[in-house]
């Protein structure tokens, strides 16, 4: 691989004499340095999640974090008398992160050694290194998108959602209805493009071609009147999911050619991919065009093939297939649909731009 350090996705903090000055059980009063407060906010802005592994009384320590006004920054805190190696492993497992994107900071060499012994992949830092952490390459993601700054809130919403689902008994569609999901489909603007680029990079199971598009290509497509670059975002009563789906589509006289459809794996179970496909079919039917969709099998995107087939796409021959340029990639398949009007989705509220007729406003 490359020599550049893998970017840290979650920093796990010790509290006593690391996050704050002092030992809570002994001193009662502890002090949070302004530099540390700034560091916490800065890492949060960069989309790096933060958690806590501290040997303390949970309620006291959490109350102190709340009093200091920083409690909201921390996800999945582990404040107990258990070994910190266990705490770090639990945090990683709940976040579904590999241990090599977890970092741990503690003033005690023995605590760092204990974590390191069990999890050599975890990057451990001494409290004295906190001043330099923001400048270290592993804490500097290549791009900081609008969603990065919201990442922690999205995870927190995700935990609340999961807790609600665990409590809920009944068919999952009934559960989905209780979420109050609102899905938006908008034409991408220049400002959305870093999020769009990120989606082409981060999606794999639900990416129809596995092709990643770069910023310059996307800018050209946004400016091209014969192309649509559509961004989907989703929110529910627990909070925002951010940008979760993307469609790149060329509009020809008789056929709309879907060159890429990708949705975030986080929201597959919510029916985002199916809703997007149904909506495209409905818009196509109203406009009187057929749909063609590129699909390039990868080792991970079979779900996308199934999604297209379930939406009615086939390998059938049709004259409309001559309109787009022939595929450049040998294994690329082009699936065909003669769309018919579809009912609006039952489990969510959809606000979508209109693709029929004259170009719609960019709302």
């Amino acid at each position, binding site marked *: 691989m490359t020599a550049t350090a893998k970017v840290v996705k979650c920093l796990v903090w010790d509290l006593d004499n690391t996050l704050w000055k002092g030992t809570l059980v002994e001193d009662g009063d502890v002090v949070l340095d302004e530099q540390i407060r700034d560091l916490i906010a800065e890492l949060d802005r960069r989309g790096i999640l933060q958690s806590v592994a501290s040997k303390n009384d949970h309620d006291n320590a959490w109350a102190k974090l709340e009093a200091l006004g920083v409690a909201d920054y921390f996800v999945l805190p582990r404040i107990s008398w258990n070994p910190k190696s266990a705490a770090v492993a639990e945090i990683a497992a709940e976040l579904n992160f590999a241990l090599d994107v977890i970092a741990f900071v503690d003033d005690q060499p023995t605590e760092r050694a204990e974590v390191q012994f069990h999890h050599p992949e975890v990057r451990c830092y001494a409290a004295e290194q906190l001043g330099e952490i923001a400048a270290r390459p592993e804490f500097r993601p290549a791009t900081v998108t609008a969603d990065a700054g919201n990442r922690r809130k999205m995870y927190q919403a995700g935990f609340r959602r999961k807790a609600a689902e665990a409590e809920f008994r009944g068919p999952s*569609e009934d559960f989905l209805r209780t979420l109050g999901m609102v899905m938006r489909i908008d034409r991408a603007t220049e400002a959305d493009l870093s999020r769009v680029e990120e989606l082409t990079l981060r999606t794999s199971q639900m990416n129809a071609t596995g092709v990643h598009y770069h910023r310059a290509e996307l800018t050209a497509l946004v400016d091209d009147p014969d192309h649509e670059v559509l961004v989907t975002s989703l929110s529910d009563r627990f909070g925002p999911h951010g940008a979760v789906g993307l469609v790149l589509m060329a509009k020809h006289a008789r056929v709309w050619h879907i060159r890429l459809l990708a949705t975030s794996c986080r929201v597959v179970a919510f029916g985002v991919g199916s809703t997007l496909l149904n909506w495209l079919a409905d818009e196509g039917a109203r406009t009187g065009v057929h749909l063609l969709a590129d699909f390039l099998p990868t080792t991970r995107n079979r779900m996308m093939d199934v999604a297209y*087939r379930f939406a009615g796409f086939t390998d059938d021959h049709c004259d409309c297939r001559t309109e787009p340029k022939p595929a450049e990639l040998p294994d690329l398949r082009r699936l065909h649909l003669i769309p018919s009007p579809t009912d609006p989705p039952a489990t969510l509220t959809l606000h979508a731009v209109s693709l029929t007729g004259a170009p719609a406003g960019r709302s």
Partner: protein
Amino acid sequence: MSQFSASEVERHIGQFLAARVNDDVPVDRDLFASGLVSSMFAMELVVFLEQAFALEILGEDLKRDNFRTIRSMTDLVLRLQPAETHAEA
């Protein structure tokens, strides 16, 4: 490779769906009529059928009508069962 009878296939699929939706599903109930089937649920169905009955479902066989009811899935499984020689396009 053992062959499954139609009633065995129906029963297997019925059990899978009952566990998945917490409710008994009649063999003729249209799974898509009640609203949206997410891509993940579609994928679960496909993978379940492939693993439970040791077969592969590819290309045109993935069409939605084949998965509409327990009965249509049973027909698909019986048609694709390994011992039955069936030319795959």
